[in-house]
């Protein structure tokens, strides 16, 4: 049996302490298979971003286990691997905004992700160009992020997320800054990546018009995850 892209068990996250204490995640468990795209919905403040950043290994949970590709990575706040190395080898990220480094061109933003993962500069450049072409922004490769539209920026961010062929891609409201048509294009792209490149993809979104692109949908409510049947 192939290990799931990610599996979280009994995640709990408490911010602050004493009377400023906020329980952001009460008890969340979720598994995402490789080749599967999962949409995560839920009201504001329900804990979606907290779950996603915990999986992204940049916001360790208070208790609970996170396994990525079958490997136990976080046991509570305790890291069992070099998290930064693990991120560059196995994870890809897309966020709502501020995804790109402003002083690097579109191409370089993708290239840097490859280079930090020890790809030689020439090969990195070639692959970055292929990815931008794949996402339809090859023509804008040499522009700085400020010169790109929101949708183009997001597609460059997706290209960067794909660069190292990650087993898990995490996206937090990646289409919030886009019009519905552009938003849909990006969502379809994620589905394509999940299916064609065999990655597990988790997308947090508020956009109910894109429900149909997901293989599975989960709802977060008050720090708990509830799996919903597909409503296609």
């Amino acid at each position, binding site marked *: 049996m192939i290990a799931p892209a990610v599996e979280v068990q009994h995640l709990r996250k408490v911010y602050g302490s004493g009377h400023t204490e906020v329980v952001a995640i009460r008890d969340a468990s979720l598994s995402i298979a490789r080749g599967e795209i999962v949409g995560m919905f839920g009201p504001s403040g329900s804990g979606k*971003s907290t779950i996603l*950043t915990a999986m*992204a290994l*940049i*916001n360790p949970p208070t208790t609970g286990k996170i396994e990525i590709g079958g490997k136990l990575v976080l046991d509570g706040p305790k890291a069992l691997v070099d998290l*930064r*190395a*693990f*991120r*560059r*080898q196995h994870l890809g*990220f897309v*966020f709502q*905004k*501020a*995804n790109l*480094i*402003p*002083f*690097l061109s579109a191409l*370089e933003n993708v*290239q*840097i*992700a490859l*280079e*930090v*993962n020890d790809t030689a*500069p020439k090969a*990195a450049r070639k692959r970055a160009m292929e990815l931008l072409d794949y996402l339809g922004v090859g023509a804008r490769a040499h522009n*700085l992020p400020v010169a790109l539209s929101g949708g183009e920026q997001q597609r460059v961010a997706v290209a*960067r997320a794909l660069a190292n062929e990650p087993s898990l891609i995490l996206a*937090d409201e990646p289409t919030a800054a886009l019009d519905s048509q552009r938003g849909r294009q990006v969502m379809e792209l994620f589905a394509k990546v999940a299916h064609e490149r065999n990655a597990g993809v988790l997308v947090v979104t508020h956009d109910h018009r894109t429900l149909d692109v997901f293989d599975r949908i989960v709802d977060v409510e008050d720090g708990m995850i509830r799996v919903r049947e597909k409503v296609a």
Partner: protein
Amino acid sequence: MNLAVRDIRHNSGRFAFTTVGIGLLLMIVMGMGGIYRGLIYEATLLVDRVGADLWVVQGHTRGPFAEVSRISASLEDRVRAVPGVAQSRRFVSHTIQRVHQGRPLRMVVQGLSWPEDRGEWIPLVAGRALGQAHYEMIADLSLRLPLGEKIKLGRDEYEVVGHTRGMVGTSGDGLTFFTVSDAQAIQFDVPGEAVRLERAARRARLEGIEIGRLQPLLLDRAAGPSSSIPALSRPQVSAVLVTLHPDADAAAVRATLDTWPDITVFSTQEQKDLLLSGMVDKAKRQLGLFRVLLIIISTIIIALIIYTLTLDKIRDIALLKLIGARNRVIGGLILQQSLLMGAFGYALAWGIGQFTFPHFPRLVVVELADLISLGFIVLVISTLASLLGIWKALSVEPNTVLSA
């Protein structure tokens, strides 16, 4: 891919401004080092150029550059009689400040032992050496006295017949060369009234004692020119310069001279050491202190600007960490920017210095060894300056990228 250069290109205005500031500071640091070298060069120039093997100066003094040294001119002949001595010359040197054509003229008056020494050893850039026993002079270009110009010093006029370049005394004043007797005439020039008073005083002293009353002729001599009175010594000189035979035993000559109680002997090297330890030492420490302060200021400025540049891109750094960049990449980005700033500043300092140093009032000598050591210092301070920024960058959490 080099992140440092790309970020600098993005922030080129701020980077350029700071670099210019650093460059100017480093130029001053470089210039101060050059001024110090210039001081040494100028201080020892004369001692080097006159090329004596030994300096005979007044007993128990450190020579004419340290204090007043007065020895009898006849010492020239005494020294010449010592076996192994090829040549001896009188050395007369004093600084005067006069007014010429409405501007102050400060110069070192240097006497040449005419007729043995006409100044052929002086490197002339124009004109000729001295050609007659009186009323000619060689002047340094820094005094701005054209060839053929006649300058009135004391009662006589002297014509500029030759030019030197960069020949200055220990305090940077231009050198002029005269025959010894002219130099002394300039030094001991006294107004006619003073001469008359001196003669009257001599006569009065003589009238007060028995021999004066018994020998009226003496009274006439006393009231005459001092050079015609055998009992009065000729004007004294500052030092006597000794040149040895090529095959003479320097130590033996020196040992002989050392037994003479009325004089002290220095080798050229000793004379130079005295000059440097006495005159240049304080200036060196002063300049050194300023250089250290300026280097500290440069370090602080580089550190602050690198720190602000780092703060400005703290989210980008967090993003780099998020996508897994190693600390080496992030630290390298900041260190390289700091080094680039130092390197550009240094290059700028050198470039500006090339144009400005020649116009400094005193000689600035920039030596390769000093350039190399300053380059090394810039390397060190740029590295130090980056530490604050690196510390900030390495301590930022990758999830900072999410908090907008």
